[in-house]
């Protein structure tokens, strides 16, 4: 590591900083400005914020977004942990399984939603199979205005399918970093498998778990493509309403308020996690 006093590192960093100032900081300020100015006319106003907060669709969207996150994240973390522990036993051919699990990792939400539609649509595979087995007479409709519950669960399944691998890979990396010597020591003390998991694996996996959680929570509040394609606005969500306000209703300033709500939630979550992480490290 070079530590001589030189301008080089600053010069190397300069383009990035300029770029982020122009295309990140400036737009953010502009968005803030849009939030507090009217769509037409001049001056400052809280009317946009008021309009959003007094719209029941906003609260519905907030509720749905939180609900989806609250169901999806624990499921993903639990499944990913099980998968990682299973794969980490390093049975013969386990790398193939790692490869298979990671396939959805690079898939887009649009693609995953269409795959899900292919399975759950009225003429999709589930209905075909059930019809063939004579278990049902009419196709089951998983999507529709009075099927918001099944829409919700199809979204959950799709998101779990698509994004569990992300958590999995973080946890697997974490597991692989745990030194063998811990377990050897535990053997000396005659720990059972369960005790090893509780007293060694979990505490040492904590940083990975935390970063996986942070990341998934951030992404969960930005959920968009899967919901938009599968449920339209049957299940309003924050990002979907941002999109709807912006593209269909052309209410840019209202859309900016929605965007800001997502940003504020993200910042809040990051802050909570970061202080939590810090205090955990200091202990």
């Amino acid at each position, binding site marked *: 590591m070079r530590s001589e006093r030189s301008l080089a590192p600053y010069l190397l960093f300069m383009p990035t900083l300029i770029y982020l100032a122009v295309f990140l900081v400036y737009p953010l300020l502009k968005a803030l400005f849009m939030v507090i100015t009217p769509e037409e006319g001049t001056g400052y106003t809280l009317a946009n914020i008021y309009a959003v907060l007094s719209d029941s669709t906003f609260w519905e969207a907030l509720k749905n977004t939180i609900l989806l996150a609250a169901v999806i994240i624990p499921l993903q973390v639990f499944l990913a942990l099980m998968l990682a522990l299973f794969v980490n036993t390093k049975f013969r051919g386990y790398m193939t399984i790692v490869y298979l699990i990671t396939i959805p990792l690079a898939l887009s939400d649009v693609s995953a939603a269409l795959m899900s539609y292919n399975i759950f649509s*009225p003429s999709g595979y589930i209905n075909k199979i059930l019809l063939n087995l004579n278990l049902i007479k009419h196709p089951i*409709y998983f*999507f529709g*205005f*009075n*099927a918001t519950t099944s829409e919700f669960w199809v979204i959950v399944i799709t998101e779990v399918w698509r994004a569990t691998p992300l958590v999995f890979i973080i946890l697997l990396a974490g597991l692989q970093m745990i030194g063998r010597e811990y377990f050897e020591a535990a053997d000396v003390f005659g720990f059972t498998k369960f005790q090893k998991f509780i007293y060694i694996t979990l505490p040492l996996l904590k940083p990975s778990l935390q970063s996986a959680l942070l990341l998934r929570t951030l992404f969960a509040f930005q959920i968009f493509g899967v919901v938009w394609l599968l449920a*339209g606005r049957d299940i309003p969500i924050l990002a979907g309403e941002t999109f709807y306000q912006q593209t*269909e*209703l052309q209410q840019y300033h209202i859309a900016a308020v929605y965007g800001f709500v997502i940003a504020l939630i993200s910042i809040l979550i990051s802050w909570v996690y970061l202080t939590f992480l810090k205090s955990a490290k200091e202990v």
Partner: protein
Amino acid sequence: MKKFAVIGLMVLLVFVVSAYAVSAPKIYFVSTQMHPAGEREFMVGTLLKSFAKESGINVEFLALTYNEMLSRVSAEEKTGKVTISVIGDLHGGLDVMASRNLLQEVKGIPLPNRTFISTLEKYSVIKGKKVYVPWMQATYVMVVNKEAYKYLPNGLTKEDVRKPTEKWTYEALLQWAKNMKEKTGTPKFGLPMAPKGLFHRFLHGYLLPSFTGYEAKEFDSPNGIKAWEYMRKLVNYIHPASSTWAAMSEPLLKGEVLLAWDHTARIKPAIVQQPDKFEVIPVPRGPAGRGYIVVAVGLAVPKKAPQKEAAYKLIDYLTRPSTQVLVLQHVGFFPTVKEATGKIPTGALRILARGVTAQSSSPDSVIAMIPNLGKYGGEFTNTYRKVFKKVVLQKASLQKEVSAAAKLLKSLFEKAGTPIQ
């Protein structure tokens, strides 16, 4: 010396050829119509291809939503860098663009051998200025799978529905839909309720005019309340997957529904594929009459459009009787020139045309035009959908929601500077 001449000639040739290649006319045609995949395919793959063959003009077809198009046309006008040569849009949209002075007058374009239908011609002249050339027209009708006639309610005959007589009412529709659900086990009446479907047109152009005589003006009148009470009953017999359908032809073809309401263009594929199975019928009437929308689509030219001559040629091509029949055949938009009407072949198109004619010649018609609300158009339609969601699906207080929405609608018309209709 000879060598030089040959080389010189060749260089010249290359220049000429490349110059020709560069200047091979290509124009942009933006449209808010012909968006669904199949329609776009026909537009690009059939119509514009044959136009290019005939005229040597390549046309780039861009499907935009109205808001996208308006912001684009105004931005181009402002910056002076106009790329669009021809605009295809609804009467209401063109009206707004004309009022913002974005369009040139299209009087005197050579359009031989055709007579435009007089009502459409009348609509295309706005404040004394000929703003667009009527291109296509359409409406929204009902399609019935003949099997559904088995479930007609007592006292209502096929003839009542086809003609239509005053017995073909919204109450009768409710009874019919109820019969179908009870006798087949699942709801068999469908509406295109997906975010991109045209369900809002049903609400503001059919339901409310039939109950109140207006789209928005009498929204919270006692009859307006009745309209929503009616929807609360009807929803039990609407196929629940409706909220995933943006167009009704697929569910009709798959037999998921036996009776549906949609835009003529969007039910067309079903009738073409199985003409023996379906009939097109007029919509029912309510206490105030038989409310329905007439959709007029026009072709306009932006003020500073490039390649105007090519644009006129395209307009000539698209309004020719033979092209108009093709459009009807493939897309389901009806001709705007009289000469085309006689050329409609038998089969699917006859079925469509018969239903549309029956509807438009019904004496109790209450014609609704899609209002010109400019940028508030989205909020306008969203209001109807929102009331439906709140009042009908979520069972919120009817009176409260309806009067709040009535106020909002009134303010939208005021903000847009359009008289409430």
